[in-house]
């Protein structure tokens, strides 16, 4: 028996006012359809022409036949690239959402605040210095060495950033952004030093990798980093309620029954693992993590239970589209995808900034 029963209380929710669940679910259906279309386009889009994509897809399933050339191009080149783009896009958007929830701030983004730079440092160090590791360690880690190093780099910088920017449960935006710049510069400098010492072959790898590209995607790379990404994507929804509660501040989240310290550790770990894995296979792809959640929040609100899955889908769409643009603009050559997302995302970020000036006054 409730202690009040008000005559004013409506018997039924009045037309679901304030409830954006249906809108979010409808949006999700539309996004899934769009993703399927974009995925098919991504498979059909490339330097080689006259590829029978449907035929090659069907042939794999045992229906009909396709030429060896078609099979190779679709299954060994375009498919890993498409899957990588989709996974990385989903992971970046979800990490951005989690990070913004964690910092209680719509401007937090792994790329902006130096987490990607930290992960990049780890990856570069692994590429150049990996050969100096004891043979046993090299054998044990194998292809996972670069993702692992990227994860450690990303994790360390997220941890340092959070410690610097958060005081007494309150995260200062200005401190976060400035600390992110400093941290990014610092890891960038060390990365630069390592790059300076690299051999010519390593240098070429590093340059293209640094600009961000899904062109080099292979099944082998995907196998090393993919499971980490999938794991973080699956685990993200478990943080949803805690992230909602955290939007009201750490004490309130605690009063609502959230183990805040444990949740923060989990969120930081998840962001670092996810960004580390992405950076390891595609290099730095910026702005996806800030643009995607922001657009979705405008339409469906900030409830993370509904936001996180949609962010994953839209993130995948955005990176696949950016990849298609990067293949088209200077065809037959390719632009690194990081350049495309930066060109599109930079102005968008400025727009958010102008709209939310008050946030920075905090």
């Amino acid at each position, binding site marked *: *028996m*409730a*202690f*009040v*029963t*008000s005559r*004013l*209380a*409506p*018997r*039924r*929710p*009045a037309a679901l*006012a*304030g*409830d*954006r669940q249906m809108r979010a679910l409808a949006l999700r259906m539309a996004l899934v359809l769009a993703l399927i279309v974009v995925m098919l386009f991504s498979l059909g889009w490339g330097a080689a022409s006259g590829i029978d994509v449907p035929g090659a897809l069907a042939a794999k399933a045992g229906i009909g036949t396709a030429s060896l050339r078609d099979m190779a191009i679709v299954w060994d080149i375009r498919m890993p690239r498409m899957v990588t783009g989709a996974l990385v896009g989903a992971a970046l958007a979800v990490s951005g959402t989690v990070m913004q929830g964690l910092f*209680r*701030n*719509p401007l937090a983004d792994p790329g902006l605040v130096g987490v990607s730079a930290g992960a990049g440092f780890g990856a570069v160090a692994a590429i150049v210095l990996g050969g100096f590791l004891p043979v046993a360690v090299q054998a044990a880690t194998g292809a996972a060495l670069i993702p692992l190093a990227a994860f450690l780099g990303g994790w360390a910088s997220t941890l340092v950033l959070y410690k610097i920017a958060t005081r007494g449960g309150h995260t200062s935006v200005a401190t976060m952004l400035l600390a992110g710049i400093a941290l990014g510069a610092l890891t960038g400098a060390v990365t630069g030093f390592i790059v300076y010492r690299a051999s010519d072959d390593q240098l070429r790898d590093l340059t293209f990798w640094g600009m961000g590209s899904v062109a080099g995607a292979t099944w082998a790379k995907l196998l090393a980093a993919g499971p980490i990404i999938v794991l973080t994507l699956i685990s993200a929804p478990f943080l949803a*309620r805690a992230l*909602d*509660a*955290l*939007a*009201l*501040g750490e*004490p*309130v989240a*605690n*009063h*609502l*029954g*959230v*183990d*805040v310290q444990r949740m923060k550790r989990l969120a930081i770990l998840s962001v670092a693992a996810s960004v580390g894995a992405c950076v390891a296979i595609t290099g730095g792809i910026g702005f996806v993590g800030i643009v995607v959640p922001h657009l979705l*929040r405008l339409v469906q*609100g*900030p*409830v993370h239970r509904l936001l996180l899955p949609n962010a994953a889908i839209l993130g995948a769409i955005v990176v696949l589209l950016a990849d298609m643009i990067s293949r088209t603009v200077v065809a037959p050559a390719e632009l690194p995808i990081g350049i495309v997302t930066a060109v599109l995302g930079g102005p968008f970020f400025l727009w958010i900034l102008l709209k939310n000036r008050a946030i920075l006054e905090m």
Partner: protein
Amino acid sequence: MLEAHSITVTYGSRRVLDRVDFTAKAGEMTAIVGPNGSGKTTLLKAITGEINAGGVTRLDGQNIAKMSPSELATRRAVLPQSGHVAFPFTVLELVRLGLTRGFATSATSGQDTLPHQALARVGLSGFEGRSVQELSGGERQRVQLARVLLQIWEPVLDDMPRWLFLDEPVSALDIGHQLVVMQIAHDFAQMGGGVVAVMHDLNLTAMFADRVTLLDQGRVQGVGTPKEVFTDAHLSACYGCTLRTNTPPPFGGPWILPQAASHHPNHIRASARARHF
């Protein structure tokens, strides 16, 4: 029964609370009053487990330091003084966060209608679709109260009282809504729940509180019913100004009228201490 023993809190070198004992009974509304900086909010934070404090707090016999956040969340809800909301939740979305048992379980029937009932109770029916960030301070305060009420909607659950902690619940409200909110707290206690509220308005406290703890400079200066604690000497000494307590009709409790600001509050404090309050 809420029992706090020897609560001590030190910020840097400043001792904010000095061996404070505090008790509150379920079925009653207990107010914590005192001048600015007397340690009221700190005491509330200590007994809700928000800050680590010296001493022990037991909620119906259980040491709160040994309870998990989720366990505590089913036993008590806390309304903080002010709350910045980081993202543009709608009023309904925010109030729903008070459904601690989640959406999946049907432990409480009417998960769909309860948020609306809670909003109606604080006078915000029809506000469901508004963005929390666009509300006035007083409206936002009442939305938060609706969320807090939802968290412990049944004042008694499984024969255990549940507790409502309020930090200056009426500070941002107009006089009409001050009465609404105080009545909600009063009703909660009448139904068997426990209410602990940090209050500034002594007259509202006298009207609604069953018991009062008067704090000054981190120490308890008086415990009892409002009638016992709100005496001219007690209040004037603690607040450093001249206050007169009267008993006007109709409710028969003490009524405090400000008389004059003292030019020498420290002098009054010193003499008050000399009389061993």
